[in-house]
């Protein structure tokens, strides 16, 4: 899945995030290449969400640099809204627009941000809803859908923007177990299209199967980083080993 001419699409350099005196992210650096799938694992409270939210500027980093195609997104003159339209995000709580139906959820960003016509937006939205298997529910409101269905619509909404990078923050953690599969399948198909993805997840089997890179984060630092093979089969750090031991029995 890796391109040979590896182009760095996203480079995080010495990222730091503080809430008051509490330093949540200490010194985070990593690179993601175009088309690569990176999963981030680690214990709760380790700063995974915060890191993801810094990348699309839902949180303002306290220090460091984030380069998108080599351009620093923290530069005051950088157009943040355009950047955000190129970096999609799928949330743990889905966050579908409650006042819009399924189709409208997938159209509004295209019309408002990308300036697409209604017809074009609708065409793209329906295509993507077909891909996630939600096309029978075009006029349903989010409240009328199950969690798994909502999350699939959220994915369709995100890819309708034709993003270059898609961020996932524990997309299956709020789901009933029987719905986890449908969402992971959708993501797996998505990974194969060559979309650059950064996924925070506790689904270790999934992480091992789809990732190009795995990052283990705890206490605001990247403790260990490598291929799925290296992290899951041959972890070096004690923290990683301990963390993975909890999963090994039931999942791997």
């Amino acid at each position, binding site marked *: 899945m890796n391109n040979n001419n590896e182009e760095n699409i996203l480079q995080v350099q010495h990222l730091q995030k503080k809430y008051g005196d509490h330093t949540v992210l200490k010194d985070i650096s990593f690179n993601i290449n175009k*088309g690569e799938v990176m999963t981030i694992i680690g214990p709760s409270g380790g700063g995974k969400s915060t890191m993801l939210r810094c990348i*699309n500027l*839902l949180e303002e980093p306290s220090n460091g640099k984030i380069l998108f195609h080599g351009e620093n997104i923290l530069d005051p003159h950088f157009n943040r*809204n*355009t*950047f*955000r*339209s*190129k*970096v*999609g*995000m799928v*949330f743990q*709580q*889905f*966050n*579908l*627009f*409650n*006042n*819009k139906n399924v189709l409208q959820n997938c159209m*509004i*960003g295209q019309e*408002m*941000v990308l300036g697409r016509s209604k017809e074009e937006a609708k065409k793209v939205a*329906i295509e993507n809803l*077909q*891909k996630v*298997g939600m*096309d*029978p*529910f*075009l*006029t*349903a*409101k989010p*409240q*009328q*859908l199950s969690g798994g269905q909502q999350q699939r619509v*959220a994915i369709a*909404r*995100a890819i309708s*923007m034709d993003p270059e990078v898609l961020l996932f923050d524990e997309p299956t953690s709020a789901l009933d177990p029987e719905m986890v599969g449908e969402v992971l399948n959708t993501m797996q*198909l*998505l990974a*194969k*299209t*060559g979309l650059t993805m950064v996924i925070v997840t506790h689904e270790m089997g999934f992480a091992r199967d789809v990732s190009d890179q795995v990052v283990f984060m705890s206490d605001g630092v990247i403790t260990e980083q490598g291929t799925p093979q290296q992290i899951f089969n041959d972890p070096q750090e004690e923290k990683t080993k301990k963390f993975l031991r909890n999963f090994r029995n039931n999942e791997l």
Partner: protein
Amino acid sequence: MKSKIRWFSALLALILSLVIGFSFNSNQTQAAKKEAPLKIGMEANYPPYNWTQTTDKNGAVPIDGSKQYANGYDVQIAKIIGKKLHRKVVVEKTEWDGLLPALTSGKIDLIIAGMSPTAERRKAINFSKPYRKSTFVVITSRNGKFAQAKGLNDFKGAKLTAQQGTLHYDLIKQLHGAKREPAMRSFSAMRQSLQSGTIDGYVAEDIEYKSYKTVNPNIVAVNLNKMQGFKVDHDDSITSIGVKKGNTELLNQVNSILNGISNKKRDQLMADAVKEQPQAGGNKKENWFMSIMHRYGSMILGGVGMTLLLALVGTIVGFFIGLLVGIVRTIPTPKSAGKKWGLKIVDWILAVYIEVFRGTPMMVQAAVIYYGIAQLWHLNLNRTVAALVIVSINTGAYLAEVIRGGINATPKGQFEAASAIGMTHSQQMWHIILPQAIRNCLPSITNEFIVNIKDTSVLSIISVSELFFVGTTVASQTFQFFQTYFIISMIYLILTFSITRIFNFIEKKLEGPKNYNLMANQLQVEDPKETGFEHEQ
């Protein structure tokens, strides 16, 4: 943020243009002064001096801004003055407490309202020569303890009252040992209280006795002027016409016209007024409900219309004001220092607006705005427009907080999801947040509408003929207090009840069904060729 400020200035511009519009109106009336109607202020609720009637019989004069007419001794005097001045007489029906401000602010030309030129009032306005001299009496029951009182000390323990803001009320102090009950707003209320026994009597003029006597023979008048030691200023025992200070031309004209009205003519006019004043009772065959509805049905209906208009327009305009204020107050702090301070100042002004209008009674706001604008800027606001503005601004202050709460209560995830696809703050607000916030605020907005239906009754202070004001007028003419107010309260109840139902229904509709019906809602997608993702590489 820029566009928010633009809306805000648009609102300000709207208000300004309204205000300027009215100032032009007043300029025009100023220019046409010579032919302008002579505007007379009176309660039109104080028979036999002045009262309201529904036809123009017995030479009644139209009441401005209504389909009703005023008549009485004051009206007949006003007509004589108007005729001599070649000016048409119109009556501005005004509450007693509103008469002086109405005159000083130029809303009326003359007060002819059975008013005595007390020293206190002379400070604010000028008075003509008297057009009526009066005797002070205590009106009490024929069979009561105080009917035989001979001296000022014979009222020990008597519960006495008088009309609010009148000299009569001060006179009670001279009746040693009498209990001064809270002053009342109108003579009709005092008559009712005397009849029901909550007071033993009330101080008034002999003319009130004469007029009350015709409808209730069981009363007597105890003459105070003849009692030893009774002191009353000359000014206080006469009634005069109020003229705005500085308007000496009009004052001189009025005085010379009054000189031309003989005592005999005056007594005749008063006797006529006593005879023609509205009578209690009426046709005995009709029950009270039918008789009130028959005589005053259209007036009450007009009151219902005005109340609904005030509540509806007030709530809608107030909603938009509240929306604007709510939006501005939830703009996230901008980065640049200039914008930050600009927003802070606007925010502060809006906070003051909300505090002031939520922290003071609407009745006081109405009085301050209506009379204040007239006095300070000589703008003569139309009463209905003034009422609409007041209700709107007041509702806006309440709804601003409701909507701000609604915006803040919208889940953070909604903002974040909208930000994450690159929507600007204003796109997020208009398309995602506000529709949800407003939907969630709907019960509060309904509630505000209901409150407005009831609370617009306080606007009677500026004499807007809404339902309560109409009720007061009807009650004071029929003397059927309980019956009239019962009808009025039933109407309020029907209004609020049905509006609550209607809004509950709308809310239910908006909520939609809980489950999605796949079969019924499925759209035919034109091109269902292949599902799943294609490889792009």
